[in-house]
């Protein structure tokens, strides 16, 4: 099997699973789960096979293959695979973490009514996500980009009978649509810039050549490139839930927890970052665009982190944390290093998936999501707790966990490039430590508030936890950073100051949380009343949801109602019915002439004669 063929097969296995699962009868539903897992495992295995040279430390030879999909003069669209180190890394993350989560789901969803639907959706997601990663051109990427949106919609709304879940799915899809609106226009712009009419192509390899050429052709083209890249970035805003399109992600936690782990933490939301990395050569043509990317990323990081502090739902805390971490990644790329962004993406995938799976274990055991109702889990579920601690460790960025390395890369990059963003990022470390410690202190330590007896989950769920825990712990030593930039990495050293500051902020956060949340209720209450306004803002998510609500309720809906009114009153009644009424009215007037009296008729008749004679003789006699 050639490498290209194996790339196609990677795409094919989850698709096959997706298509086959609906055919399995309900009685043999477990088969469906295993089928999905098998598809994912096969994809993972093939990915490893492709990536093998990397593991052997050899340089990776990228390759590209495609088939014609749409062929119209002036518009050739292909379906292709582009496998380079970037996509291999992403593929490893997607299939690797995916495999773990699929396996985990076997147990987690075992009792669910929509078991087969769930695994079908998961397989569809895997297919689309892999599609994004291996896409050879921008439009193909867009297609899979939309498809992951679909699978996300379906999986968030898995428990569709719950109103919140149904709403959340809709919200996620529509918010993404708004982003994709810009994305598609961006694609069209790039297509226009990519050369003469007949030679245009959206192929990445091609774009990397033609767009710089376009940029150099004229000074005025720079603004167009910036515009195009910002439009592409709007797609990222939606998918990676960056401010201001972040609102859907916390709500998306209504989906089953493994879905949150896989889609809304590890992979799908990272697709935006992947897109930035993929189009980084184009972004780098526009410093202005990159700057905006960086600032938005930095802002999202700190913006989300502050909100995480006041959340009570364990999954929501993690969701805000995801937002914040995605902000880090976007910022990293905005600051000029796709490799660092991708590095953090990878480690984040490990520990955030682990966090969610841990949370899933807890929820599975307790059927409870509010951290204030938990407490003392560390004693009752030791394995889960240990893995959770490891993951939190990595998230905050303590040595030697993987998060330490990737986050330090980002911080030092920011330190070199933009001092303001550096401080933002560093302060976010403090916040990260604060909310994670709060979570751990409240939910895992202290006394249990749960009456019933809790069990560790079975081996099926623990195995993925363990695997991800190991990766989170040692991820920093695997040389992941070298995959993307083997040469450049060693060129700059991490400033000691940065490392120290980050660690200090981290410890500070942990301590703050420890003392505050271990303290008596009284102190907590007093503190909370003191900061009530701020807390209110945070709890209300900076009023972002309310703002969107207002927009929808007071702008869009009235507008729709207005148009509906316009249709009824102006178009139907005004234009149509009144025309008809006018005809009927003139008919009515004509009937008045029809008096029923002979001599009136005769007069009209004779009048007609006289007029006719006048018009055609007398009037023409003396012109």
């Amino acid at each position, binding site marked *: 099997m050639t490498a290209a063929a194996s790339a196609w097969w990677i795409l094919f296995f989850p698709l096959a699973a997706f298509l086959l699962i609906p055919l399995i009868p309900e009685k043999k539903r477990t088969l469906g789960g295993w089928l999905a897992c098998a598809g994912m495992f096969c994809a993972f295995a093939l990915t490893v096979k492709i990536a093998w040279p990397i593991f052997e430390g050899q340089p990776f030879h990228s390759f590209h293959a495609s088939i014609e999909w749409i062929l119209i003069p002036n518009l050739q669209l292909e379906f292709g695979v582009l496998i380079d180190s970037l996509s291999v890394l992403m593929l490893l993350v997607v299939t690797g973490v995916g495999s773990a989560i699929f396996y985990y789901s076997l147990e987690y969803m075992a009792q669910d009514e929509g078991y087969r639907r769930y695994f079908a959706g998961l397989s569809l997601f895997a297919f689309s996500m892999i599609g994004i990663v291996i896409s050879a051109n921008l439009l193909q990427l867009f297609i899979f980009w939309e498809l992951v949106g679909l699978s996300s919609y379906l999986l968030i709304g898995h428990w569709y009978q719950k109103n919140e879940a149904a709403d959340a799915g809709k919200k996620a899809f529509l918010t993404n649509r708004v982003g994709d609106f810009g994305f598609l226009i961006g694609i069209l712009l790039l297509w226009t810039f990519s050369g003469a009419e007949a030679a245009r192509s959206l192929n990445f390899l091609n774009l990397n050549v033609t767009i710089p050429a376009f940029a150099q052709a004229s000074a005025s083209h720079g603004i167009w490139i910036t515009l195009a890249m910002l439009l592409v970035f709007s797609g990222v805003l939606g998918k990676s839930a960056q401010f201001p399109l972040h609102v859907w992600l916390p709500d998306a936690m209504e989906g089953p927890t493994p879905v949150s782990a896989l889609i809304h933490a590890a992979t799908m939301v990272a697709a935006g970052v992947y897109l930035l990395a993929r189009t980084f050569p184009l972004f780098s043509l526009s410093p202005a665009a990159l700057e905006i990317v960086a600032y938005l990323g930095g802002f999202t990081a700190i913006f989300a982190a502050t909100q995480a502090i006041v959340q009570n739902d364990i999954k929501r805390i993690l969701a805000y944390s995801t937002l914040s971490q995605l902000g880090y990644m976007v910022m990293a790329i905005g600051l000029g290093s796709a490799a660092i962004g991708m590095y953090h993406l990878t480690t984040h995938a490990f520990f955030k998936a682990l966090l969610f799976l841990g949370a899933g274990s807890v929820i599975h055991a307790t059927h409870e999501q509010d951290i204030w109702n938990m407490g003392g889990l560390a004693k009752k579920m030791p394995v889960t707790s240990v893995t959770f601690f490891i993951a939190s460790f990595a998230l905050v960025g303590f040595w030697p966990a993987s998060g330490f390395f990737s986050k330090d890369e980002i911080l030092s990059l920011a330190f070199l490039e933009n001092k303001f963003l550096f401080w933002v990022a560093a302060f976010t470390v403090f916040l990260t430590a604060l909310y994670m410690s709060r979570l751990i202190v409240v939910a895992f330590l202290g006394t249990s508030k749960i009456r019933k007896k809790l069990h560790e989950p079975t081996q099926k769920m623990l195995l993925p936890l363990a695997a991800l825990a190991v990766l989170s712990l040692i991820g920093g030593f695997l040389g992941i950073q070298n995959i993307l930039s083997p040469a450049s990495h060693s060129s700059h050293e991490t400033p000691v100051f940065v490392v120290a500051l980050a660690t200090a902020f981290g410890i500070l956060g942990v301590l703050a949380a420890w003392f505050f949340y271990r303290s008596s209720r009284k102190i907590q209450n007093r503190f909370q009343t003191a900061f009530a306004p701020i807390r209110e803002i945070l709890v209300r998510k900076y009023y972002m949801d309310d703002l969107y609500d207002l927009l929808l309720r007071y702008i869009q809906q009235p507008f729709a109602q207005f148009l509906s009114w316009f249709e009824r009153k102006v178009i139907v009644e005004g234009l149509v019915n009144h025309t008809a009424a006018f005809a009927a009215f003139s008919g009515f007037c004509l*009937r008045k002439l*029809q*008096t*029923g*009296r*002979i*001599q009136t008729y*005769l*007069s009209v008749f*004779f009048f007609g004669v006289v007029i006719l004679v006048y018009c055609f003789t007398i009037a023409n006699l003396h012109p």
Partner: protein
Amino acid sequence: MTLNHYLITSGILFAIGAFGVLGRRNVIIILLSIEIMLNAANLSFVAFASHLNDLGGQVISLFVIAIAASEVAIGLAIAVILFREQGTLDPEKMNLMKG
């Protein structure tokens, strides 16, 4: 006497007849007025016949007299029924159908 004299005479007769038809509210007088109009046409036919030196006009006027006779016959028959059924000869009183 020129042709125009005769034509104008016939025109006057025609106009008077037309007025009778338009204005009089008695079917019998209306029928009489129509006779006047037909005779106006006859006068014009005969005058033109002389003018053209062609017998046709006179022949036609004979036809017209015959047609007028038939028309009057039918008209009077209807007038008789009308009077018998409705007790009036006023055409304006008939407007069951209108609009």
